[in-house]
């Protein structure tokens, strides 16, 4: 019989005391083995950095630190759980609709941690690299969880959407999107694998004369669209090249990434067309096959990398392999995505006009 | 003749020079003496056009200095500063050649080069001509500055404490050169002097400044009396003739009477360093 802390002898009947103690002991044991339904369940998921993270459920209050997260949350029909958003989202008022009213927590790269904490979220979802690991440390002080998801890499998008779906109890919506996504990705992949040629493509990043080297989103998009990136052999993600080099490699298609910040709000394709024309008129570039045949295209960042990369790939595949995809209508795809998954109507401009109808 | 008439100069609302009058005749030497801070250097700079006086005129051989362009003025007045900041390399020849600037349109002419060479030779600087000025001793550097002013081919020379950084021999040498030039080339010399004995010995006229005003002026024997020296410098001194020169021997600090109001003259920092 254990001594009581006060050291006094307990002169109660022995049998009564033992069962009393055993009873409490059993309760403790039981509690430690029970799933924590009384305090909430948890789930272990894989984050964008490849780590296995244990996330406590349920998740009712979310702070979304970037547009990709917010977009996926809307796809999963979980936008009512969003209690805080990154400040830059107000630039795309038209696209986000009522979500614009949600409290702002600062820049996606450098949020106001106090603002986040004051909203008492269950979880903060951010990119794997930005903001830095300090976010976890600081949020832990308030008992707020942090989940790192990239959601802009095509290969891992579906996994991550599923992770989020599971965490939010939105598996059905996640499956809907992933099926749709997979269907189109597979369809494109199949046709490309069977292609006889792989046209050479020059992908230019947002800054002029900076190609999309290995490791960049543009390079991935090119591969998925069945193109041969002329910068594939370079060493860094955004290498600067000379105009002469592009002329000498003579690509058959040129795709430029443009960032207007809000393609959704554009009235027409004029800004993209202007950019396209500027490229067409670059000195000595008329000797490039792509320029000579008018295969120069400009694409908005909204469909470049992110949850809508499939749209960007659809456009690119039409430009690079027009003969293989006579029926593919990227605009219709985009409309479908926006109406079905985002719950907004299709609007805006996202690419430049084609100069020649595909006649290969 | 170089005439200074009623010159006033202020520095930030402080009156530094009041009603200065001076006359420098060709071939004569006028020394400005006075304790530190009385405005000797300021006066020279006002005359040379480096500082702009608040009131008063400078007339050079009948021409009003105010109406002259700076370049024109540099053909009349040669200014020798106390020292020269050295930041970039320059040879002695180049430095003296710079004195020809008032005559140089774009590049030095043959004439300018010859003149420069002559002056360097006259001043016995020929051996140093191609050396950099930062490698010269104090005495040599001062000579170079004098040579530069002479290269301006002016009728009047203004010297700001030409001997203050020099050793005994170079002090004498410098002043002897100046006097010789003054007599030979009939140049009027105006110099601010620190040393009373040297100024007494080498000047024709003394201008004694005190607190920005003229205290007295006249021949050295007239101006440098023990009474004047006591008033202006606050020093008891003995003045006598020896070896043909006026000798001023400081004896002790004077007991300054309170009724005179022994205000310490304001120290005016030179404006353009």
């Amino acid at each position, binding site marked *: 019989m254990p001594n009581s802390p006060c050291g006094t002898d307990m002169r109660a009947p022995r049998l009564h005391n033992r069962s009393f103690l055993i009873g409490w002991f059993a309760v403790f044991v039981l509690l430690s083995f029970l799933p924590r339904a009384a305090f909430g369940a948890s789930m272990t998921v894989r984050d964008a950095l490849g780590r296995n993270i244990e996330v406590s459920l349920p998740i009712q209050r979310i702070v979304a630190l970037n547009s990709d997260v917010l977009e996926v949350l809307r796809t999963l029909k979980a936008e009512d759980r969003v209690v805080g958003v990154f400040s830059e989202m107000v630039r795309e008022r038209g696209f986000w609709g009522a979500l614009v009213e949600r409290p702002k927590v600062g820049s996606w790269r450098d949020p106001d941690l106090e603002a986040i904490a004051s909203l008492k979220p269950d979880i903060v979802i951010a990119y794997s690299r930005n903001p830095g690991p300090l976010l976890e440390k600081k949020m832990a002080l308030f008992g707020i969880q942090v989940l790192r998801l990239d959601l802009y890499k095509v290969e891992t998008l579906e996994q991550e959407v599923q992770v989020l779906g599971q965490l939010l109890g939105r598996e059905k919506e996640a499956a809907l999107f992933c099926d749709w996504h997979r269907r189109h990705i597979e369809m494109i992949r199949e046709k490309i694998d069977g292609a006889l040629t792989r046209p050479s493509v020059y992908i230019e990043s947002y800054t*002029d004369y900076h190609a999309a080297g290995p490791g960049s989103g543009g390079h991935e998009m090119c591969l998925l669209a069945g193109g041969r990136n002329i910068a594939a052999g370079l060493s860094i993600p955004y290498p600067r090249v000379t105009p*002469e080099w592009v002329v000498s490699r003579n690509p058959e298609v040129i795709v430029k990434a443009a960032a207007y910040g809000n393609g959704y709000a554009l009235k027409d394709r004029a800004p993209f067309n202007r950019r396209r024309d500027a490229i067409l008129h670059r000195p000595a570039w008329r000797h490039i096959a792509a320029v000579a045949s008018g295969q120069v295209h400009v694409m908005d960042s909204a469909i470049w990398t992110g949850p809508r990369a499939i749209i960007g790939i659809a456009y690119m595949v039409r430009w690079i392999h027009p003969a293989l995809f006579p029926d593919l209508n990227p605009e219709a795809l985009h409309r479908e995505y926006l109406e079905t998954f985002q719950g907004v109507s299709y609007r805006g401009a996202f690419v430049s006009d084609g100069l020649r109808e595909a006649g290969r | 003749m170089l005439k200074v008439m009623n010159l006033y100069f202020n520095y930030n609302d402080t009156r530094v020079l009041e009603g200065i009058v001076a006359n420098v005749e060709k071939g004569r030497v006028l020394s400005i003496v006075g304790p530190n801070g009385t405005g000797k250097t300021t006066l020279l700079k006002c005359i040379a056009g480096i500082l702009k006086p608040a009131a008063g005129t400078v007339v050079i051989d009948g021409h009003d200095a105010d109406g002259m362009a700076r370049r024109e003025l540099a053909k009349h007045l040669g200014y020798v500063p106390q020292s020269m900041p050295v930041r970039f390399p320059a040879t002695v020849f180049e430095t003296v050649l710079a004195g020809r600037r008032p005559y140089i349109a774009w590049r030095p002419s043959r004439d300018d080069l010859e003149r420069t060479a002559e002056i360097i030779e006259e001043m016995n600087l020929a051996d140093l001509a191609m050396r950099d000025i930062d490698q010269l001793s104090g005495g040599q550097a001062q000579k170079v500055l004098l040579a530069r002013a002479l290269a301006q081919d002016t009728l009047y020379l203004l010297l700001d404490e030409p001997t203050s950084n020099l050793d005994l021999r170079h002090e004498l040498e410098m002043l002897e050169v100046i006097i010789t030039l003054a007599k030979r080339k009939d140049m009027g010399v105006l110099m601010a002097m620190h040393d009373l004995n040297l100024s007494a010995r080498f000047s024709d006229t003394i201008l004694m400044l005190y607190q920005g005003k003229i205290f007295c002026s006249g021949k050295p024997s007239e101006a440098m009396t023990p009474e004047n020296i006591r008033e202006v410098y606050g020093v008891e001194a003995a003045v006598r003739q020896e070896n043909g020169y006026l000798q001023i021997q400081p004896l002790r600090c004077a007991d300054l009477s309170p009724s005179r109001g022994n205000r310490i003259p304001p120290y005016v920092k030179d404006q353009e360093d």
Partner: protein
Amino acid sequence: MNNIADDLCRGYKARADARALFLAAAFFLLLTAMAIGLCIGASGMEFREVIASLLKDTGRGHSIIWMLRLPRIVMAMLVGFGMGLAGAVFQAILRNPLASPFTLGVGSAAGFGAVSVILVFGGGFQTWYIACGAFLFSLISAALILAVAKMKRASSETMILTGIAQMFLFSSLTSLLQYMGTMEQVHEVVFWFFGSLSKAGWREIGLAAAMILLPFPALLWRAWDFNLLSSGDESALALGVNVKRLRMSAVVAASLVTAGGICFTGVIGFVGLVAPHITRMVIGNDHQFLLPASGLVGALIVVFADTLGRTVWAPQVIPIGIVTSFIGVPFFFYLLMKRTREYW
């Protein structure tokens, strides 16, 4: 004139001739560097082909040489010349051997102008907007310097202080704008600050040439006054130089030269500091020779740096501003080791 004076004159003449020789040598070296740069490029043209393309009328080779390589090299030469020239002028009027075209804040102001355009116009800007923005703000910064100089004093210390204040002002404003921008805009800004010779076409070259070469004769005309400035404002005034007016007009001219270069190419640092130094070490401080020579040396450096940046990591290009910064490092170490006297 007697013998000694004669010798002296001859000695001076000999030095002047040596300096003129250096000028000629620098000029020919520059032409050589430009020719070499012309023969190097990503399309790997052989020497014969380069010559043929130069002389031909049309064709891909012709386009590459005349539309891509030649403008690049000519622009490099122009900007380098401008930086060298402006650097020498700024060092003279600020009487500071560590001055450069960017000491008075022109670079920071130009950067701010460029960044403002990038942010205001978002993705819709044309490349020449940036040049306009950069140029406009360069002039604003020069105007600010002049305004302060007029109000207070046109001394070198006043100008340097104003310049440093401006540098901080425009840098912080630039950082603020960058902070508010999107990732793409930030990239664009960063790359602008690296400098780039790819964007210059013949029209830009024409404009840059006007802004860089037109003030040159005016500055050369004042070469002797710059010589005098180095002996102090006092001496210069006494020798007939209107120091205030000289400083202010030199600031205008040199800022124009600087702005004319960097508004098209972005900031190309170090050249404006290093070229006058190297030149001065060889031929001394006579600005009659220092101004053009410093320009030529600057041009040489930039042409060489561009060729280097295009070759070392081909086909990737190391931005010109980065290459010139690297050149500065060994140069300054050399200065540290070799300096025997207390000044330059």
